[in-house]
């Protein structure tokens, strides 16, 4: 029996994942982080991207759009601003959001750039997760 840790992913309005995972790859703000059981305690801000985790040998993916992560020896808690399972992603909306964000990047002044970038990141993350599930 491989060692596991409890993985919890919560957004303000619901708890999306609560499982005993053996591994997780998390989109940190400054790059992806691989988490295995008994990881050293860690706190980080998250960026937008696919979060993959393994439960009982099966890999799962959810889209995470920013938030925070707290890693403890036996548990990983993720507070996500938004999080969606692959089947919940609205591809058309993501594509539309990406187009709008890119448009904003082109003609916006300096003040809007970080928001547009964040929006584009979220849209790309959604599309990447959806693509992985062949949709």
């Amino acid at each position, binding site marked *: 029996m491989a060692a596991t840790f409890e993985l919890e992913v919560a957004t303000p309005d619901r*708890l999306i994942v609560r499982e005993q995972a053996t591994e997780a790859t998390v989109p940190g703000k400054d790059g992806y982080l691989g988490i295995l059981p008994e990881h050293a305690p860690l706190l980080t801000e998250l960026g937008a991207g696919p979060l993959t985790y393994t439960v009982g040998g099966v890999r799962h993916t959810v889209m995470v759009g920013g938030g925070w992560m*707290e890693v403890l020896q036996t548990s990983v808690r993720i507070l996500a601003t938004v999080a969606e399972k692959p089947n919940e992603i609205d591809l058309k909306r993501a594509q539309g959001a990406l187009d709008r964000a890119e448009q904003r990047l082109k003609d916006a002044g300096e003040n809007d750039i970080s928001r547009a970038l964040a929006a584009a990141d979220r849209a790309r993350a959604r599309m990447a997760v959806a693509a992985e599930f062949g949709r």
Partner: protein
Amino acid sequence: MPSLIDFRRRIRSVKNTQQITKAMKMVSAAKLRRAQEAVVAGRPFAGMLQRMLANVAGAAAGNDSVNDHPLLQQREQKRALVVLVSADRGLAGAFNSNVNRGAQKFMQDLPGVAFEIEAVGKKGRDYFRRRGFTITGDHQNFSRKPNYGDVAAVAKKVSARYAAGEVDAVYLAYNEFKSVMTQQFRMVQVLPVPLPTGGVTTNYIYEQPADELLGSLLPRYVEIELWRSVLESTASEHAARMTAMDAASRNATDVIERVTLQMNRVRQASITREIIEVVSGASALK
């Protein structure tokens, strides 16, 4: 003495009212279930955020940039803002007056402070507008189906006003959902953010500096507190309305019973009178 027809009218009218109160009770019961689920669903995130904030605050304590954070500035309270979470509609027992009176008492107990109201829900807005308070914002239809985006927008606005120095403190006033029978008025301070002092128990690796992390967590904390109070208030509203309408339906049953009894007495009396008239008429002929 009212005639039989008057009694019948009265009974019919009370029955109509009772049908409405019964229907409202059922509707509230259904909405309550959904609202309760939303409260429960929102708890994990709020709990985790609280713990994380405590940890990060402990680690970042004493750091200069922490004390400079715009959402932590302690100022002398001259102007304060109350975000008042009430219902859009009445017929919910003491629900609205609980929040309104509670908030009013709180403000009266702080005489040196000029209060403004950011109203979530129509009933609270009306109450304080009649009493001449400044209403800085008016948000409705939150309780129908609480939407995180809407609530977060209010939180952002309030935080911005605080950071700009327009107000020196921000409070939340709402009804907390204890159970279907009890809702408790709560008044909590959200700005300046009361940093929890749990102390650090774990030595974390920080991917970002602790103060930076804290800075990004704080605005979210204000959003979550407001979000939670809206959810609690929504659940409380439906619970209060359900209880009130249940009481009203039962009261209607009592009224119908009483009026029916009176009606039967009057009917009996008129029958008795007729018999006496007939009997006395007959005996007069003898």
